[in-house]
């Protein structure tokens, strides 16, 4: 029996102090010098650890307070208030909200899944993946106890082309398929983000993380040099149209990615000729044209298709971009209708920010998911996009070391893995491959809203 997949996480502290939503403001003027000041009674010892971080100009009362309001309510002179931290509100964007960013930092530091008390405090629903809920099992469909290790839930996926039936040769002998298949044990591939104050140690750290996680890292071929050698079996060189790859590197990697272009299948054939062991990914922009384009590619032999969405979690199209959840489903459905879905593997990128996005993307029809910007956030990026305009990075991403980067990414993906086990276990699924395209095991906001709320306000039909 192969060893069970296990991710070794390790505490990897951040370089900067975390931001929290609200800190405390404590005035000195008017202080009554009480015998026992409320500041001494803080359960979390926030005031005892009080010091100023010179680099960030952050006080620990702005980084450690846990919002119990006791000092605020206890000070007889009412000198203590809580206030929303403007810096917290400034980080991130619509998709990578301050909350998601800080939770990602935490996961990258500890490898632990976010747990909290007192129920859910978020919105009822939202856009994109927030407009769906995953199913659970109850009574007649038992769940799986994956998270406590009582049952093994596999998260491995095989990427590559598959035949739909066995083929026989002239004399009736069985012809074994010749397609390479690449096994990833975590259904998330890593990819270099589209922006970021990124230098080589980050890239090396990313490649090493893919190796540790037994998955693959998609890295532009042009930046891969000798230093990547130890990791090459887990590196996917990504090529621009009509650029070749040197044979030495080709012999070491398991997969290659090529950006789609009219003659892409020629380029694929060329690579396959040089090395038949390599599985080739064709990277297709994810938009309304992708179902038709993917069908074409699959009919002409594509092995793996990378549906590339945008960083904002939407389609790659200038106008009326839908969320990738719907766009993936269209491609999946098109291939199902043509009886070709099982011949090809689909991987999808575009604004994957949370573990739940992985599960939901798979439920919508992708075999595996590609993370990118989330990996930059794992090394403390604040998604300010300053680097895109040539501004200095506020958290000096350019200074990260490869090892630290690897640990942070492995921690994040380790936490994501445990969360995938939670979702699979609740659904009663023991193999993540079973989740693919299982839209019947999810609940969709649009459908439920119509079903339940559209008829309100009228006398109920008898």
């Amino acid at each position: 029996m192969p060893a069970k997949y296990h991710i070794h996480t390790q505490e990897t502290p951040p370089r900067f102090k975390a931001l929290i939503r609200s800190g405390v403001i404590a005035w000195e003027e008017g202080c009554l010098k009480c015998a026992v000041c409320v500041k001494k009674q803080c359960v979390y010892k926030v005031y005892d650890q009080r010091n100023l971080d010179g680099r960030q100009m952050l006080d620990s009362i702005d980084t450690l307070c846990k919002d119990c309001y006791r000092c605020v309510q206890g000070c007889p002179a009412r000198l203590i208030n809580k206030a929303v931290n403007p810096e917290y509100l400034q980080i991130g964007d619509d998709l990578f909200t301050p909350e998601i960013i800080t939770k990602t930092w935490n996961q990258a530091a500890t490898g632990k899944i976010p747990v909290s008390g007192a129920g859910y405090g978020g919105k009822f629903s939202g856009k994109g993946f927030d407009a769906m809920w995953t199913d659970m099992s109850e009574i007649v469909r038992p769940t799986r106890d994956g998270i406590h290790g009582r049952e093994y839930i596999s998260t491995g996926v095989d990427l590559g082309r598959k035949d739909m039936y066995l083929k026989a040769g002239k004399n009736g002998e069985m012809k074994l398929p010749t397609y390479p298949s690449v096994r990833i044990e975590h259904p998330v591939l890593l990819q270099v983000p589209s922006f970021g104050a990124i230098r080589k140690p980050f890239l090396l750290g990313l490649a090493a993380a893919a190796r540790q996680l037994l998955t693959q890292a998609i890295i532009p071929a042009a930046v891969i040099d000798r230093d990547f050698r130890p990791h090459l079996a887990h590196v996917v060189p990504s090529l621009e149209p009509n650029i070749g790859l040197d044979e030495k590197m080709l012999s070491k990697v398991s997969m290659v990615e090529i950006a789609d272009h009219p003659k892409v299948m020629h380029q694929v054939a060329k690579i396959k000729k040089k090395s038949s062991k390599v599985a080739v990914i064709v990277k297709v922009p994810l938009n309304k044209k992708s179902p038709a384009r993917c069908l074409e590619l699959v009919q002409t032999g594509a092995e793996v298709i990378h549906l590339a969405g945008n960083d904002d979690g939407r389609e790659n199209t200038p106008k009326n971009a839908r969320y990738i959840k719907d766009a993936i489903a269209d491609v999946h459905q098109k291939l199902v209708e043509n009886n070709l879905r099982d011949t090809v593997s689909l991987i999808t990128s575009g604004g994957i920010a949370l573990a739940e996005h992985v599960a939901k993307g798979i439920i919508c029809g992708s075999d595996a998911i590609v993370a990118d910007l989330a990996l930059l956030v794992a090394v403390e990026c604040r998604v300010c996009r300053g680097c895109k305009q040539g501004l200095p990075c506020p958290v000096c991403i350019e200074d990260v070391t490869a090892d630290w980067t690897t640990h942070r990414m492995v921690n994040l993906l380790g936490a994501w893995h445990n969360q995938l086990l939670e979702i699979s276990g609740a659904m009663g699924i023991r193999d993540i491959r079973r989740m693919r395209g299982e839209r019947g095991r999810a609940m969709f906001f649009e459908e439920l809203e119509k079903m339940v709320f559209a008829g309100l306000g009228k006398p109920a039909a008898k």
Partner: protein
Amino acid sequence: MNAPTKAFDPSQVKEAPSRFRTALGKYRVSRSAKCIVCGLCVDVCPLGVNEKIGGRITSPRDYKCLGPKCPTACFKQCPVQAITVRTDPTFETMGDYRWTGDMLVSTYYMCETGRVPQNGLEYRTGASDGGFDKLRLIFPKDPGHVSPDEVDTSIELNRTGDGRPQIDIPFPVYGGGMSFGSVSIRAIVGRMKAATALNSFCCTGEGGYPDDLIPYDDHVITQVATGLFGVREETIQRVRIVEFKYAQGAKPGLGGHLLGDKVTPAVAKMREAVVGSALFSPFPFHSVYSVEDHKKHIDWIKATNSKALVSVKVSTPTDVDMVAVGSYFAGAHIIHLDGSYGGTGAAPDIAKKNIAMPIEYAVPMVHRFLVAEGIRDKITLIASGGIRTPHDLIKIVALGADGIVTGTADMVAMECVRCHNCESGRGCARGIATTDTGLVELMESDWVAQRLINMYQAWRAEVQRILAKMGLKSIRQLVGRTEFLAHLDYLPDHVDGEIEY
């Protein structure tokens, strides 16, 4: 054992102010050094916000302040303009989308006074942008005359006609399971005292049945959950209702989890476990894999206690309607649906947010299915999971439930601020969700009971007011009556009445 006074008698309301020196509120009244201690502000304020202590004036009750729009406006009358009234900056940091600062502070107010707040706080809906928060009530043009006092809010818990006792509760609310360990014993005892005074029930949760609860036996629902912590024949025989917890909405598909820090010697003894080591309840019941197994479980309880009613608590998968029907045929008296946005001691965020469906969808699905199967009037349908206010209660009943179970609202009554840190270290710094000996001291069970009694009195008055305005004499007439509801995204073209926004 019967409650000493009649449940929901107005005399049960007694002021129960905050445990802390300064109560949290929306407005802050401050007074500058210009103050000449004339005492005018003390006299003009109808709510007693300001007070003269020695040679100084202070505003110890500014959480009751009506804010800058106050009609008597002490700050306008002050001869030296020493008073300013503005939104308390601290208030802006309070709450979340589901429990907004307004809703927290108004709940505190109800718990202190037994009345809904008068100062413009939005106590009816939150800001979650969906579900309850986008539902509004429709009041018919001509409801006929019903006076709020005559509105009956009681419901029956045994509608099966199986010969077991009929149990009525005067108001369609009982307390959901919170286990010893996840909250302090004082919180539990306080809730039991309130349930007794209000002639309702409160569930033990899965942490066993502490001896301190024996005086309240008649109002206790004991829980049989997957971990079977502290479940014994004698605890099942003591009570009038036994609850089977198949799942919990806040962590559907996952078992309970009590972090090691909270497993103190007392908790460990109760649960027959080891001090300091985390306790996981398995998921699911590994002895239930079919409706037949399910029936076997219920039969076991019924055989152990020949008088008890059985409630089945399930969460909300895609086929929740089938689960409900299965539970009816397995012999349950109460089917308790716990929607995905409910409260809990500690759960993975991914589960709370994503797994299973919100209660606003599940209740109408189940209600409609039970009606279609012709068994709706044979079972009591109870909803929980994110029901925060009397308005939510009205809405979920109109969607098809008979009554509700509360959890988080009870915590807020005990001055929970929803900091979501119940699971960390010594537990709740406010002494609610903790077993830390020092922190437990912060709260008395009598105070908890009084706060809850006040809150539910306020809720009931509000429910009676609304039902009267709808022209209904009993809450039982509201069940499944979706014509009294409107959803902001699907407003009907024509409404025969008035929509309350």
